[in-house]
Every structure is written in C-alpha cells, then in structure tokens.
C-alpha cells in the first residue's frame, strides 16, 4: 500500500508543489537562459536554419588529406612501413582462412560446423549447424558464404584478442576502467555506418578496410564484458587465493579469469554477432561475400537475389548465436560430463569424421558445391514480388496498397515532421534538446547533447541531419507505440510471451542489413521503407525490455492495488507503468539508438539524409562529404542517446 501511493506521480497542484519537482526547476532555469540568450543570438544571426556564419568548412582540408593519402599511399613511410603491413597481414590471413575453407570443400566445412556444434553445444545444434551450411550451398551461395566466413574468422579473432587486452587492462586497473568506460559505452550506441569512412580514408576500399571496421565495431563488447567479469570476481575467493600466497599472475589465471568465464563467453557471443552484422554492412566498402550480393541486388531492386544472399546471413547469425550461447550455458551449468566421449576423445572423433568427409569429397572430385544441387529461388521470388507489385501496391479495395501506405506515410508523417524540424529556428532546436536531456538526465548529458547538436550545425549538415532526425522520430514513435502495446500484452499473458519469445530471439540476432530486403519488396524505395526497416529492427528489443520491466513490478504493489478495488486498467496505468518507468525509459533509449542505426543504412534504399551523404561520398570517391556525414551521424547518435538517457545507465542489448 505504502509503495503504491509513494511512487504514483504527485497529484497535488499549486506553485509550491510544482517547485518541489526538479524538472520544473530545470525548465525554469533554461527558460531564464533562453530569455537572455535568444534575443542576442537572433539579432546577430537571425533565426531559421543554422546560420552560415557559424559553420566551418572542413571539406577542403579533408579533400586535401584524402588526395594526399591517395598520392602517397605507395611511397610515404607511414604507409609502407606501418599501414602497409597491417593491410598485408589482413589480406594474408583472410586469404589463408579462405584457402583452408576452400580446401576443406563444402563437405568438410559443413561437417566441421556440425562437429564443432556437437562438441560445444550438443546434438540438436549440430543438426541445425549442418543444415544451415547445406542450405547456404543449396541457395548457390557457397563461395560468398565462405568469403564472409573467412573475413569473420579473422575479424573475430582480432576483436577477441584486442577486447581481452583492453578488458584485462580495465579489469585490473581502476583508472583505466574509469577512462575507458564512457568511451566503450558511447561506441556501443553509434551506428555501424559511422565506422566505415575513416578506415576507407586510410586503407582505400577493400577487404583490409572492411576487416578493420569490423574489429573496431565488435571489440568493445568483449572489452567491456571482460572488464566487468574481472571486476566482479567474488571478494572472498580472491582473498582466499591471496592468503594462499598466490602471485599476481596465479591470482589472475587461476581465480579471476575462470570466475569471469561466463562474462567472457557472453562477450564472445556479442562480439561474433556484431562482427557478422558489420561484415555484412562493410560490403559497401568492399568486404565482398554475402553482404556484397545483397548490396548488388538492392541496387538493382532485385529482391530475389537479395533474398538468396540474405537467407545464408540469417542462418549464419542464428547458428553462431545459438552455438556460442549454448556453450556459455553449458559452462555455467557446471554439470559433470560423464559420457565416454568427453574431452579429447569426443574432439578427436569430431576431427576424424570431418577429415574423412573432406577427403571423400576431394577424391570424389566434389570440392565445389555441385551446380546441379543449386535451387534457384531468385526467379520465383521475383515473380511473387511482381505479383505483389501488380496486386498489393496500389488500389487494393478498402485498405489501399502498400505503396499507397508508404506514400501517405511520407506525405502526412515524414514530410510534416521534416519540414517542421527544418522550419524551427536553430536555437530553438538546441533549447528543445537541452530541455529534454536535462529533464530526463543530468546537466552533463544535456551539455553533451547540446554540443553534439551544435557540432552538426557547425559542420554545415544541419538540413540533412534534421531529415534523418525526422525519420528517426517517426520511426521511434511507431516503435514505441507498437512495442509498449505488445510488451504490455505479453506481460499480462504468459501464452503470448511464450509465443513471442522464439520470434524475438531470431529477430534480435539478424544483422541490420537484412531488414532492408523485405521492405523494398513491400514498399519500394524511399524514406518510408527505411523507416519501416528501422521499426522492425528496433521492435524486438523494445518489446523485450518492456515485458521484463512490467513483469518485475513488485507483486505486493499489484496485490494491494487490487485489494483497493482497482480495475485491471487502473492497475496498469497507476501502478505498473509508473513503477516500471526506468525500464520503459531504457526501452525508449534502446529504441532510439536502434532506429537510428537502421535509418542511416536506409540511405541504400533511397532514405536520403545523412546515410545518403555517406554513401554518395563513397560512391563518388568524395570522402570529405562522406566523412562529414559520418561525423554528423556520430553527433546525432550521441545527442539522441544522451537526450533519452535516464540518470542511471543500464546494460545494453548487444547486437
């Protein structure tokens, strides 16, 4: 009873009560600042879009830098003695892994995948892994799959080593931990797209750039979880080990690391998933493989081909996630394995079977996936899509066609938001950002958010950024409404939750890129499909966090509300939702971050805005435009994250 009343919002009115609420005080302070500053700013630079006088033209120095790099790439010592070696090492290792995979042949690789899954995760997953790889072959995507796999293997190994090193440093040293944490936190909220341009600037388009971008993107979760695992070691155990006279190294190797096993494996799982999602996106900077097939197909609006390459990506994601996840659970369970196949015996059987299969295929001269086993799905899919275009696009009675929805969404939702944002005076945008961030978070988050937004103006990409922002806002609104509704429903019905869980699991493991395929099929190209893809991508996380948050509301509070005769609706509105507020805020924050990530990729399907700037920069070899777009994406990501960041930071969803 007490809890219920104390945490429902204060309902009394009057100035005294208002002043007691900190949000009002903050807003009043801001209003005072605005009252002083706005007239001055207005007089000096006028309203409307970001004033020309306050911009800095960075494109010229950037273009010069880019030209200098191209001209000196084969002569300057920085490249020949440093970057050149990195680039060579990457090309060599990717090539090495690729050749091994090709030499093992399709039979060897498929069986090896099954065998590894069997040893670390059990028979069921072994079957899944084998089937998944066979499906990649059946779709005629064997060679691209191997290319993506080779790139992934190298990138994941590098990320794990780098992440572990950083994590060790941060786990053992408080100062490094304090320094690194905000950086890692921020890196996790930035869209993958922002990482592409800087590496291209140095390494040019190609595999080395793609691998490096992937490593930079996927190492943070490993570092973060390693550090957290090491720091979370049980104090009692550590003291016991120390009192036994163990040296620092012994303490680390025999106590701290084994105790952090679970976090390490979770880190590995997240790193692999993020690496896959990046390896696919990096096709726009020459990663090759499956992502490239999707990219090529999307640029010709060939949904069938895109799907044929997209399915293997999804299968890879599901298999990798399940297998590493199951391995982590097994380790955590501490079950004694008593089967005769435990340890080296099982592994040697697995290795022997793999070798036998690989050799058999080699001698049967079946090293490459036989072309007669390829199922062409592109044509039937395109036929189905054409049928959809003819029958579902426009003029469906009563509901209208999908293209009509997209057009309406663009005209009645996206356009007004965009025009509204672009029509706002620039200082008022900053004020709104400050107000939101400060009310929700602290003055630090507000300051970061305002500075990030101002940086966008200074870089002279104000209008493109507001275009992207308008898509994010529309996407977030849809996501939050749908996500909260489904989340509330799922929290009230166990059956619905059980039904949703496997769907959410699969959706949460899919790389962002894949979502573009179905929306292009349904809505064509433009801003509406980009937003639709973003909504579908962000929805699972929002639903999940909402459901969990509502479920965690104390049953005592619920019961006392019920005993007071509250209806189901009243319970939800006055008890559950207010108590679950932190979770709902987190869901909103996640929704914003995830929607932005996909809206930016939406540049590939005609989404415009900043994502388009990045792509156009890449396409025209005009890295200055691309880099500025990339920096603006970073700023926008920072701003959106800080604006929606509750005072207390929570763990993030991985990939």
């Amino acid at each position, binding site marked *: 009873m007490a809890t219920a009343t104390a945490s429902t919002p204060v309902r009394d009115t009057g100035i005294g009560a208002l002043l007691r609420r900190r949000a009002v005080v903050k807003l009043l302070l801001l209003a005072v600042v605005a009252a002083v500053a706005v007239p001055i700013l207005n007089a000096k630079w006028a309203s409307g879009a970001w004033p020309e006088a306050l911009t800095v033209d960075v494109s010229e120095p950037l273009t010069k830098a880019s030209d200098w790099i191209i001209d000196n790439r084969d002569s300057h010592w920085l*490249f020949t003695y440093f970057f050149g070696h990195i680039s060579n090492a990457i090309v060599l290792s990717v090539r090495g892994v690729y*050749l091994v995979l090709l030499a093992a042949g399709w039979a060897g690789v498929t069986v090896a995948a099954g065998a590894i899954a069997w040893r670390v995760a059990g028979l069921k997953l072994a079957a899944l892994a084998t089937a998944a790889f066979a499906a990649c072959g059946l779709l005629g995507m064997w060679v691209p799959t191997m290319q993506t796999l080779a790139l992934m293997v190298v990138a994941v190994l590098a990320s794990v080593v780098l992440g572990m090193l950083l994590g060790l440093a941060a786990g053992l040293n408080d100062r490094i931990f304090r320094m690194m944490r905000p950086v890692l936190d921020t890196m996790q909220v930035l869209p993958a797209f922002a990482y592409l341009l800087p590496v291209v600037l140095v390494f040019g*388009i190609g595999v080395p750039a793609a691998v490096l971008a992937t490593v930079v993107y996927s190492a943070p979760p490993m570092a973060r979880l390693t550090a957290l695992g090491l720091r979370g070691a049980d104090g009692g155990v550590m003291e016991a080990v120390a009192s036994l006279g163990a040296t620092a190294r012994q303490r680390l190797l025999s106590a701290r690391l084994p105790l952090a096993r679970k976090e390490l494996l979770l880190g590995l799982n997240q790193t692999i998933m993020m690496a896959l999602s990046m390896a696919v996106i990096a096709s726009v900077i020459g990663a090759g493989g499956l992502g490239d097939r999707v990219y090529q197909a999307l640029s010709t609006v060939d949904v069938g081909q895109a799907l044929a390459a997209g399915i293997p990506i999804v299968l890879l994601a599901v298999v990798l996630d399940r297998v590493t996840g199951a391995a982590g659970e097994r380790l955590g369970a501490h079950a004694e394995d008593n089967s005769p196949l435990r340890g080296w015996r099982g592994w040697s059987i697995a290795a022997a079977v793999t070798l036998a299969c690989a050799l058999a295929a080699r001698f049967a001269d079946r090293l490459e996936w036989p072309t007669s086993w390829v199922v062409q799905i592109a044509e039937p899919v395109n036929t189905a899509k054409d049928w959809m275009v003819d029958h579902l696009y426009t003029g469906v009675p009563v509901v209208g066609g999908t293209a009509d929805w997209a057009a309406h969404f663009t005209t009645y939702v996206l356009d007004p938001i965009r025009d509204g944002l672009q029509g706002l005076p620039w200082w008022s945008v900053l004020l709104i950002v400050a107000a939101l961030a400060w009310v929700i978070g602290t003055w630090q988050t507000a300051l970061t958010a305002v500075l990030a937004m101002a940086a966008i103006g200074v870089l002279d990409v104000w209008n493109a950024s507001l275009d992207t922002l308008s898509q994010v806002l529309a996407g977030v609104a849809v996501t939050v409404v749908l996500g909260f509704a489904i989340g509330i429903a799922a929290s009230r019905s166990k059956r619905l939750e059980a039904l949703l869980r496997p769907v959410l699991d699969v959706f949460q493991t899919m790389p962002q890129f894949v979502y573009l395929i179905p929306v292009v099929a349904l809505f064509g190209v433009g801003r509406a499909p980009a937003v639709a893809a973003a909504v579908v991508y962000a929805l699972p996380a929002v639903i999940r966090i909402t459901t969990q948050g509502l479920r965690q509301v104390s049953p005592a509070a619920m019961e006392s509300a019920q005993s007071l005769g509250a209806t189901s609706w009243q319970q939800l509105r006055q008890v559950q939702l207010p108590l679950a507020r932190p979770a709902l805020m987190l869901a909103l924050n996640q929704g914003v971050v995830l929607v932005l990530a996909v809206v930016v990729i939406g540049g590939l399907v*005609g989404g415009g805005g900043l994502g*388009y700037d990045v792509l156009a920069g890449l*396409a025209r070899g005009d890295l200055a435009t691309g880099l500025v777009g990339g920096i603006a994406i970073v700023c926008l990501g920072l701003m959106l994250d800080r604006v929606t960041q509750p005072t207390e930071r929570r763990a993030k969803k991985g990939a």
Partner: protein
Amino acid sequence: MRVRTRVTAAVAGLGALVALSGCGKADMSKQASPYANAAGAKTVTLSVQSWVGAQADVAVAEYLLKEELGYRVDKVQIDEIPAWDALSQGRVDAIMEDWGHPDQEQRYIKDKKTIVPGGGIGVTGHIGWYVPTYFAKKHPDVTDWKNLNKYAKDFRTPESGGKGQLMDGSPSYVTNDKALVENLDLDYKVVFAGSEAAQITQIEQFAKQQKPFLTYWYKPQWLFKKVPMTEVKLPAYKEGCDADPAKIKCAYPHTPLQKFLNADFAKNGGKAAEFLKRFKWSEADQNEVSLMIADQKMSPEDAAKKWIDANEAKWRGWVPK
C-alpha cells in the same frame, strides 16, 4: 618490482615484434583481393558498374573468359570513381565501360602510370535530359531548354516542393545537373532517385499513368524501347565548355566509351588481357543483351550465352589463339 620487469619485458618484446615486421617495405597499393586466384585457378577481376549496359559488357566478357579461355572471373561492384582507385591498386583488373573521368585519367594514367587505356568498347554514350515522347508530342516546345520554366509546374512532385523535378539516378553517375539548373536559371530541383533501378522504377510508374516527367538519362539504354523518350535540347556542347564544373552551361558531350586496364595486368595478364583489349562490339549488340537482362529478367549469364551462341562471327576475333 616484479611487475615492472615484466612490463619492461613486454615492451621490449612488442618493440622487437614491430621492428621485425617493420623491416621490409609493404606496398599496400599493390594488393589483389584476398579471394582472387584461389585454388590455383587463373582469375580475372572485373569491375561491374551498376547500369545495365556495363553489366552486359561484363557478362559477355565473363562468359567468354570462362568458356573459351578457362579463366575464373570475379566480379566486384564498385562505383565509378572508387573503381579507378581499385584498378590502380590491382584490386580490379579491368573496367569495361568508362564514361569519361578526366581527373582520374590525369592522376592514374599520366602521373602514376598504374592504369593503361584498353581501347574503346565500340559504343558511344550520350547523357542528356529527356521527357517522355507522349508529353513532347502534346507540347512540342518543351524540347527546348528555354521553355522548360514554362512547364515547371507540370513536373512538380512532393519531393521537389514548389519547383519542377529533374530526376537524377545514382549520385555516383557523371552529372552536371545541379550546376546546369543553377547556371541556366531553371526553376527546377534535382532529386536523386538513389540508384538506376529506382529511377527506372519511377519512370515506368510515370509512364504507366502517362504523367509528364523530366529525367537525366543516357544512351544507349534499353529503356527507350519500353518508354520512348525525347531529348530536351540544352545549349550546344563545345570543346572545353565543361572545363569548370561550377560554370557549366552546355549539354553533355558524346563520349566514346573506354576500357581501362591495370598496368601490371595489361603487361602480364596473358590471354585474358589480350582478349579484353580486343573486346569491341556495337550499340545494337549491347542493347540486345541489356534488354534480355533488364526487361526479360534473364540472368546476365543466360543472356550472354544466348547472344554468344547466335553471334560467333562477331566474337571469334576477340579470342586469342
């Protein structure tokens, strides 16, 4: 104390490693794709541009390289300008159809000498502004740029706001349209469809509803057979009138499309390089293959095979003995 010695040892070790690996020079500008030449096959890497004509060139070249000369062909999709960089670095062996990039030619062919011209492909390309013929018949004066402002309201769309829409395709294509609109004082806004495919989709939708539109388009292009379009006359092209991109006031030139090869590949590429240098066909041939790919939705392979089976006399001479 112990910790310090260990740190010193680690630093020393790292230093040694860096010194070891840093000994030799590593030229990162001479790296082939890690996927090239795998498993002992002779490989040629071709750059595929996103328009269909270029796809037709590549499909036919790929088929002949595979079937007649026993090469394995890797295709990489790279946009026009990055393709020059990739060609210079050897990540790509050849570009089959280039629409003219003077800056790049200066940098890579004349200064760095990493790329050599591979001769013409036999097709002359022309970029221009087009309106659908059904609209031009009703309003014959629209085909002169001086009258475009009169028709601006007909070409208005939600994306172009109060101005007329001039539809462009992919941002990576050669285009002066923004400068042209400004310098000719036209009441138009350039709207990028995002890709050629998106542009074609839009053109076809406009044509289905018989709506007027003004688009950046180019010849040779198979779409003319499905949607007849008439060119809008811009101020005539004169040699050098497009020297300063910001001040352009004239039409696009007629460009004989060129092939370009990586310099090393041209020298050491054996029969494949020889074949690519000899490859030359006509506009009609290219259109035939393009139409099969883009309109009849045949896979580029099948389309190439069909043309090759029917035209042996034409390609026999390209294949070195």
